[in-house]
């Protein structure tokens, strides 16, 4: 038993509070199962209860988990989970806010939002479910689908180059970038914990298998093509932006902490008069006297 499992055994109730007895509706072998499990493990290990976390979901297969996570969840519009989650965090900075979205939602419908969520460094944990296609709308190409893939809507093969999501994120001045794979629950759990501890936008690229529509990057393919930074590159320094920029351009999928910028000032701290000790905005709605202002008009 890994020490993670031992610790987990000690706080099983904290894990079970999020467990549902509803029938799960993802396909067999879908990466979403392990990703959701790892998230529950991380929450349990970080001792974050249902009164201390709000889950925000985009529309896509990962979003269909929004009523299968027994906690306060909001299932918004396609592509819009990042500004939605940012609005939640700004209103209530005292609770953890987690946002989850697919590759279609994040780099097509919501491409503008991911740029500015990273730039503003809203203090939320963001899981990017990268299954390299549109699962819920039955298998169209996304912006991350390799050129040439035959998908619904491009029978002659996807005509356009795929984007490299992490190459883009690293060009936005992020504060925390990591990569995990749905094939390794323990590692996901560990990185999700780090993301929950991070006081800024934790962008986590989650390599997600989608056996139904993505026959290329299958569970097995990932297992063969992933490597762990901690094991393979012991001298890797995640605060070195150029090292990170080079790493994400490599064929091999290195998992772990890719980039971390402790100096970046998160969104709330950048507000000159904001103070973490002052009440959350949700607790602060009161009649404000404006007579001082009116006197000067």
């Amino acid at each position, binding site marked *: 038993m890994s020490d993670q499992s031992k610790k987990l055994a000690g706080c099983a109730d904290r894990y079970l*509070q999020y467990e549902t007895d*509803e029938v799960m509706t993802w396909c067999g072998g879908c990466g979403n199962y392990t990703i959701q499990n790892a998230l529950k493990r991380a929450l349990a290990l970080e001792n974050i*209860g*249902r*009164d*201390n*976390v*709000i889950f*925000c979901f985009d*529309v896509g297969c990962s979003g*269909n988990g*929004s*009523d299968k996570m*027994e*906690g*306060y*969840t*909001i*299932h*918004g*519009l396609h592509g*819009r989970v990042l*500004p*939605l*989650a*940012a*609005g*939640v*965090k*700004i*209103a*209530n900075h005292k*609770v953890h806010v987690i946002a989850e979205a697919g590759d279609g939602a994040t780099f097509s419908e919501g491409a*503008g*939002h991911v*740029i*500015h969520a990273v730039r503003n460094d809203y203090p939320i944990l963001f899981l990017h479910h990268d299954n390299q296609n549109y699962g819920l709308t039955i298998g169209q190409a996304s912006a991350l689908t390799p050129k040439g893939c035959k998908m619904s809507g491009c029978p002659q093969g996807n005509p356009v180059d795929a984007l490299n999501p992490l190459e883009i994120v690293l060009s936005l001045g992020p504060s925390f970038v990591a990569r995990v794979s749905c094939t390794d629950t323990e590692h996901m759990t560990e990185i999700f914990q780090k993301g929950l501890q991070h006081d800024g936008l934790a962008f986590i690229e989650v390599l997600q298998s989608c056996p139904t529509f993505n026959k290329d990057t299958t569970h097995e393919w990932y297992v063969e093509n992933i490597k762990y930074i901690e094991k393979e590159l012991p001298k890797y320094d995640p605060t070195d932006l150029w090292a990170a920029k080079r790493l994400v351009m490599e064929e091999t999928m290195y998992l772990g902490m890719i980039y971390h910028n402790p100096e970046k000032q998160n969104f709330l701290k950048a*507000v*000159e*008069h*904001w103070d973490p000790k*002052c009440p*959350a*905005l*949700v607790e*602060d*709605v*009161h*009649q*404000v*006297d*404006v*007579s*001082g*202002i*009116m*006197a000067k*008009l």
Partner: protein
Amino acid sequence: MNTRTRLRIAGQSGTGLLSVGSILIRSLRDMGFYCVADREFPSLIKGGHSCFTINFSDQPLKSLSQTCDILVTIDKPSTQAYFDTLDEGGVWVHGYERPVGLKDFRDTADKRHITTVHMPTRTTAKEVGGTDLQQNVVLTGMAWKVLGLPYDILETEMKRKFAKKPQFMESNLAALKAGYERTEYQIPQTKYQIPKKKERRMLIDGNHAIALGAIHAGVRVYYAYPMSPSSSILTHMADYAKEVGMIVKQGEDEITVANLNMGSWYAGTRSLCATSGGGYDLMTETVSLAGIIETPWVGIIVQRPGPATGLPTWTAQGDLNLAIYSSHGEFARCVIAVSDPEDNFTLIQHALNLAEKFQIPVIVLSDRVTGESLLTVPEFAQNTIPIERHLVTGKNLEKLDNHDRYKITKDGVSKRWIPCSHPDKYYFANGDEHDGMGRLDEDQSAGEMYAKRFRKLETLEKDLPEPEVLGVKKEADISFVGWGSSKNVMQDIIGQQGISGKRQGVRINYLHYSYVYPLKTKSLEKFFKDNPNVHLIEGNHTGQLGQLIEQKTSLKFKGKLLKWNGRPFFVEDLENYIKEQMPKTK
């Protein structure tokens, strides 16, 4: 007795006409006059003709006249653009150095018995130690003298305005005085009484008032993407943020703004956003989300003429249908329309209360003329509209069941509580159709949840105040029905504050809708019964409130006064329309 005096300062954008205007209107306000002032300016940064118009009186004023008694012109192109808005017998004040190109103006002036008041303002400024930067200050002194008003008031205002820039103070005062003293001509005193009692009034526009109302009602975060004519709300909110402990975030586009607003409302605080018609198009999908997850969402549309970019710096009431019918699917919403600073301040507070009470999106319609024209108004009464949050809190949370959040009820409203306020009473705010707790529900019975949400519209309608009748109670010779900014010109016409002053004994009244949707029809039906000659007044081309009335009732308007060229209703518009519509005998 009409004592409206109309002063217009014309100049190209960026030539300082606003600073001349602001000193004059502040001085008039200090003297206790009622003032209303508005800018006309093109959608450019520099160049293009623009003017600042002040109408003042010892009686309350809310709308402007189209023409003016005194025209102060800063540059020749603007003289060209606005000269014919100076009435017969008016006064033309200018300070050009070289008379070149003025020939035909002087001829027209003579023909129309217009008195010209002139001195070379640049030379005058230099004579008294100023620079050509002070030529407008000389012009300000000249105008005040033409109005025949005491110099000390003007001087106090100048000192207050340049208190933070002492380096200009001395030369400014010298130039001001020179302009004032070297001008002989004064308009005849009969024009107006100088108000005796000096009730202190604020000079404020609708955008500023709605910002203060929102702050007063406990809005804790404001989101906006710049778009005229709503941008000044962002500027005000940002200026006060620190002082009132509010967070202000300029979103990177309107969809970001709408979803930040949605997230903050869902999390349980009071949030607000504003935009104009084009920006609101981008928010409509998010408003539909607020509809299905039954979460309050308040947004302001400061209208301008569309379609598309249209006329960014002009005014219109063309987006009522947008507010009522946009956003896919069917769900309950409320549309409220503001008109003067006072109801900007109060109606935003009601909008926030209604949004929380019925857990619905509430859209507040303003427009450029409401948002940006300055009025003298007494300080707003505070603490008259208690904050109603309609949240389950404290011990009551224990009694909740997860399925209470979207429980199917008769009046359509279910219980709402702040996420995380209780660890076990979680629920799913689900954009997909759902059951009482928010779990996906695709069964036939899901239609009941759809109908439950829509029932809130009926409950809301019963809760809203009826439209108010202004003017004569019954049997008016001519009556009008309108909403939003139309109230201002109607109040001036009813208060005999048109130009002609005397309304030739015409009995007028006006039914005003602040709460436009869902449409209340009881007093409307009574208004049509009590008054034989009811007309519609709307600042758009298709008479959108008229269409809503024709759909909900079988009432028919005798006529429709519609305006859609970007200009607000002037008192002349009403006076001419009434003249046309009234039977000749009157």
